[in-house]
């Protein structure tokens, strides 16, 4: 039985190995036919003419992720502070399932909500089509909230009570102690939550494809449409063939490498935190 248990545990290693292998084997041959520099730095995506530049999508992915972070990080961190240090127990008892439910709502439902409510709202308020960086960022900001809140709350709760008491004894107010003594002590944990949120935002597909317009152009202002790396793969995989198809798998490889780098950063921060 021990062997069976061991083998099951090793399935994770096997899975990561197989996923990497399949992506690389199917994605790398593309670079022998198409220069990697033109692929990653090319600003034009025109599969019909065999022009594959994914720079607009890379910029697009970072654009919406940045937007999500600008919205999600302050609200998430402040909510975590509220749950950890200000709110009474009954309030926390309501907030916890709320956050868990936000994490549980499927991304396709978020996307549906976005396209039915937020897109028309932005269209009528600011003009344009409504399918925009703005809506994608708002939606992603909501979607990464639970990740940020849960990690930040755990980090805040883990700060020793003596920090808080020491600050109070020096004459600081309750709020001052929370923001000047506890918050800095919890910073590494909060940052790792943000990194986790970035990972989620960059990898999100369904919610974005429904609200972002998906034009493979360099993203303009926040009311213009945008296409991300994830959307590029999902949108065109259905009918792509030959070099076009390989270019999409290569897009997946680029995304995979970005996500792996973020994961690595996350575990690096975590390890340093544990060592401290």
């Amino acid at each position, binding site marked *: 039985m*021990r062997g*069976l*248990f*061991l083998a*099951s*545990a*090793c399935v*994770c*290693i096997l*899975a*990561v190995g197989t996923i990497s292998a*399949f*992506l690389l084997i199917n994605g790398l041959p593309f670079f022998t036919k198409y220069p990697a520099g033109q692929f990653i730095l090319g600003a034009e995506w025109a599969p019909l003419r065999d022009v594959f530049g994914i720079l607009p999508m890379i910029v697009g992915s970072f654009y919406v992720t940045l937007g999500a972070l600008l919205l999600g990080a302050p*609200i998430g961190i*402040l*909510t975590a*502070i*509220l*749950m950890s240090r*200000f709110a009474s127990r009954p309030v926390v008892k*309501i*907030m916890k*399932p*709320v*956050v*868990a*439910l*936000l994490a*549980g*709502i*499927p*991304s*396709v*439902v*978020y*996307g*549906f*909500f976005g396209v*039915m409510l937020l897109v028309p709202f932005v269209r009528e308020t600011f003009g344009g089509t409504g399918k925009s960086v703005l809506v994608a960022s708002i939606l992603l900001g*909501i979607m990464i*909230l639970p990740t940020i*809140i849960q990690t930040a709350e755990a980090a805040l709760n883990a700060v020793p009570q003596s920090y808080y008491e020491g600050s109070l004894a020096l004459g600081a*107010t*309750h*709020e*001052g102690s929370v923001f000047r003594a506890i918050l800095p002590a919890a910073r590494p944990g909060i940052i790792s939550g943000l990194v986790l949120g970035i990972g989620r935002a*960059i990898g*999100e*597909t*369904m919610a974005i494809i429904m609200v972002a317009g998906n034009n493979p152009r360099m993203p303009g202002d926040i009311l213009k449409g945008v296409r991300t790396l994830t959307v590029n*793969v999902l949108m065109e*995989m*259905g009918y792509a063939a030959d070099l076009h198809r390989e270019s999409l*798998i290569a897009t*997946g490889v680029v*995304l*995979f490498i970005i*996500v792996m780098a973020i*994961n690595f950063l996350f*575990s690096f921060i975590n390890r340093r935190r544990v060592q401290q």
Partner: protein
Amino acid sequence: MTTIEYKGQQVDIAVPTRKRLYLGSKILKFLCWLSGLITVGTLLLIVAYILIRGIPFLKPSMFEVRYTSKNVSMFHAIINTLSMTGLSLLFAVPVGVFGGIYLAEYAKPGSKLVKLIRVTAETLAGIPSIIYALFGMLAFVVTLKMGISILSGALTLAIMTLPLILRQTEESLLAVPMSYREGSFGLGAGKLRTTVRIVLPVAMPGILAAVLLSIGRISGETAALIYTAGTATRLAGLAESGRTLSVHLYQLQQEGRFINEAFAVAVVLLIIVVLMNALSSFIAHKLTRKG
């Protein structure tokens, strides 16, 4: 300087002027409550909006057994979601639970292998669903020639949910007090018997909570299924293409002719997710109270 009354006399004492400090504190506190309100309000808005627009369209025609392009019934999608969930769990639960048992009960903590398993499990949890979609398509659909089918989709989702079940099993097992194991060993039971008969039953609620969360996740997954299980509108056998509820919702929205029906599908999806979350946290809550 502030004047206070002390033992019947007016006394001047030096008090640091903290008006600005207090104001700052109040603003910070206000911002915290505002953020909390936004968080709760957002969830309420999403749920209320979907329920209000969707419930009126949960008509019997939406649940007719035969799908036609007129009734856009979601019956087939519900059954496909069930078989997709069942099949994925059939693969993921044994592997996840066994793997968790190894990590918690057998492995030498801190060994290189354990570290590697942990890192790869974390990696699996962090891989976006669109990458799983690519992998599932390349590996199961094309290379293993399973075609676009429920089976391909279920295998893809099984790998996606594996880290959650593995991790939760390990944590639940580690939470079981050492004395249970010692008592069992003391009565002469072996390692395997102790693990399976004593430790595993105690950890069961935690594992169950993880399984319920996985059900919620599988029902909501869309991106990974479109090119592995496909979008066919029928009751699909294992080797056939069939859409699940979430794919059904996406397709209805994309076609644009049946938005009201799409809202109804979203309601059903929301109910499943809320139910699974509630059950899961109920079980986990019971567990912590017992422990």
